[in-house]
């Protein structure tokens, strides 16, 4: 709370009331201004500043003066104006009343006309309505149907809707000449700027589509916004959106874009450009390009034929080359086989020689052993023979001795000395007189023979 200080006296000599504290005066002023009758003002909107957190500020002017305006941001956004609609110079009608911000010790005061509603006036109003329709059609997806259509690169038949006798016709022909296009061109002349324009254009569109043109150009060489109104017709735009033939529009301004521009497959600034868009390829260039492609293809075809011939020749040579290769391979194999056999024979021979040598050595050893054995045997045989001979001589001598001894005991010798052998009839030697006496017959053997004898009974021993 600041000290109010001593009372301030007024200006000496002044007849005016006061002095009053300025804050009180400012608040009173605000109340007085708010008490003014609320009115509508019309003028050009200028100096629209970017919205603050709560307010939108601009000025309203005409030739006689201007008023600063402020609008609560909520009210402003409720207007649903498309971005860019409020541009400097646009005529608007605002509704509201005076207001005053009294300021404070630290902030400046300001006066403004507090706007509670706003609408665009005149042509601006028309644009706003177009904008609303534009958003509606866009929301329905009608701006994309045409753009999804396939456009032929080389349309054979092009339908053109334009005003009869207008400059657009020449522009169309110029555009097609630039493309060197010389197909079928179907003119559908229609009014393009009066109240009959939209229905006539719509009918022309459907008729051209029914006549199976490949693409339709709607051409018009600019005009005022009112003139372009026909191309913002809702039925016309919906018809275009549902057509199965691509539509190329060339009706708009640089500044005012019609709804047909939005709904069409392509939007161009001039009829000439529209035709170039309808025929995207330059026919002459395409012909040259095609010729070049044909030439290159032909080169490849010729090259491939030559290649094929070479390939066939290679294939023709292939069997004999294969045979030669196989023959060489077989010969090589044979040589290797022979070499291998020779090596094996040589190895076997070496091995056999070695075995032979070993066998020879063994045979020599065996012969030597045999000779030695034979010598030993001969020696032994000789020794045996010598021993046998000695033994035989000894035995012979012994036999002789035995013979002598035996001969000494030979009965024949005894007989020759006069003795006789007595035997019975059976041959049994009778060695006693008794026995002889009991034998009926006796056989007497002498050295020179034998005889039978009968013992005399009276000579028998008693």
């Amino acid at each position, binding site marked *: 709370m600041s000290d109010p200080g001593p009372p301030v006296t007024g200006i000496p000599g002044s007849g005016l009331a006061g002095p009053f504290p300025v804050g009180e005066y400012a608040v009173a002023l605000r109340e007085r201004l708010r008490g003014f009758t609320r009115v509508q003002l019309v003028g050009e909107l200028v100096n629209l500043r970017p919205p603050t957190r709560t307010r939108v500020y601009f000025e309203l002017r005409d030739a006689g003066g201007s008023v600063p305006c402020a609008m609560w941001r909520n009210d402003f956004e409720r207007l649903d104006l498309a971005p860019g609609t409020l541009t400097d110079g646009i005529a608007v009608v605002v509704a509201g009343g005076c207001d005053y911000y009294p300021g404070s010790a630290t902030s400046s005061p300001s006066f403004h006309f507090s706007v509670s509603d706003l609408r665009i006036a005149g042509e601006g109003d028309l644009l706003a309505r177009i904008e609303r329709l534009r958003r509606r059609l866009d929301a329905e997806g009608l701006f994309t149907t045409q753009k999804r259509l396939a456009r032929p690169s080389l349309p054979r038949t092009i339908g053109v809707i334009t005003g009869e006798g207008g400059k657009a016709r020449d522009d169309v022909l110029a555009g097609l000449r630039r493309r060197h296009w010389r197909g079928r061109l179907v003119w559908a002349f229609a009014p393009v700027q009066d109240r009959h324009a939209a229905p006539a254009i719509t009918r022309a569109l459907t008729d051209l589509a029914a006549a*199976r043109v490949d693409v339709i150009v709607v051409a018009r060489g600019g005009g005022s916004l009112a003139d372009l109104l026909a191309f913002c017709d809702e039925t*016309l735009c919906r018809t275009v959106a*549902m057509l199965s033939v691509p539509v190329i529009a060339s009706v708009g301004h640089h500044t005012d874009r019609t709804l047909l521009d939005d709904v069409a497959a392509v939007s161009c600034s001039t009829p000439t450009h529209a035709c170039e868009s309808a025929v995207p390829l330059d026919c002459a260039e*395409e012909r040259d390009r095609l010729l070049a*492609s044909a030439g290159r293809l032909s080169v490849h075809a010729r090259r491939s034929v030559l290649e094929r011939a070479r390939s066939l020749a290679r294939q023709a040579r292939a069997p004999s080359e294969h045979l030669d290769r196989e023959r060489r391979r077989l010969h090589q194999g044979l040589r290797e086989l022979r070499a291998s056999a020779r090596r094996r024979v040589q190895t076997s021979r070496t091995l056999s020689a070695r075995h032979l040598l070993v066998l020879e050595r063994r045979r020599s050893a065996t012969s030597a052993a045999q000779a030695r054995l034979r010598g030993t045997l001969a020696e032994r045989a000789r020794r045996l023979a010598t021993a046998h001979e000695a033994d035989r001589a000894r035995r012979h001598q012994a036999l002789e001795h035995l013979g002598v001894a035996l001969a000494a005991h030979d009965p024949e010798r005894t007989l020759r000395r006069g003795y006789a052998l007595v035997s019975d009839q059976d041959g049994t030697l009778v060695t006693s007189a008794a026995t002889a006496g009991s034998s009926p017959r006796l056989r007497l053997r002498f050295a020179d023979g034998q005889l039978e004898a009968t013992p005399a009974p009276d000579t028998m021993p008693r």
Partner: protein
Amino acid sequence: MNEFPVSGEADAVERATSTTDDPARTDGPSYEQATARIEEIIRRLDSGEAGLRETLELCREGQGLIERCAAELDAVGQGLEELRLDELVARLEAGTRRDPDE
């Protein structure tokens, strides 16, 4: 609902959407597809990677496409023919009437 002037052609949309493309133009590849394929074929041939059989097949295919494209170019290169819509409609109607007698 319509706050904007409308043309009043109630059946316009229905008539417009009942049209169809020319069937003769819808079979086979489009001109651009054909030329793109020709370019692709030539690139393949230029690469030298195609074998003999493939080369011959590509040449054959490319030749066919070139003939098709040439026919397309011929169709729009013979001479500009200008018609009014009513003339074209009359011609089409005359053709339609003649057809059953042929």
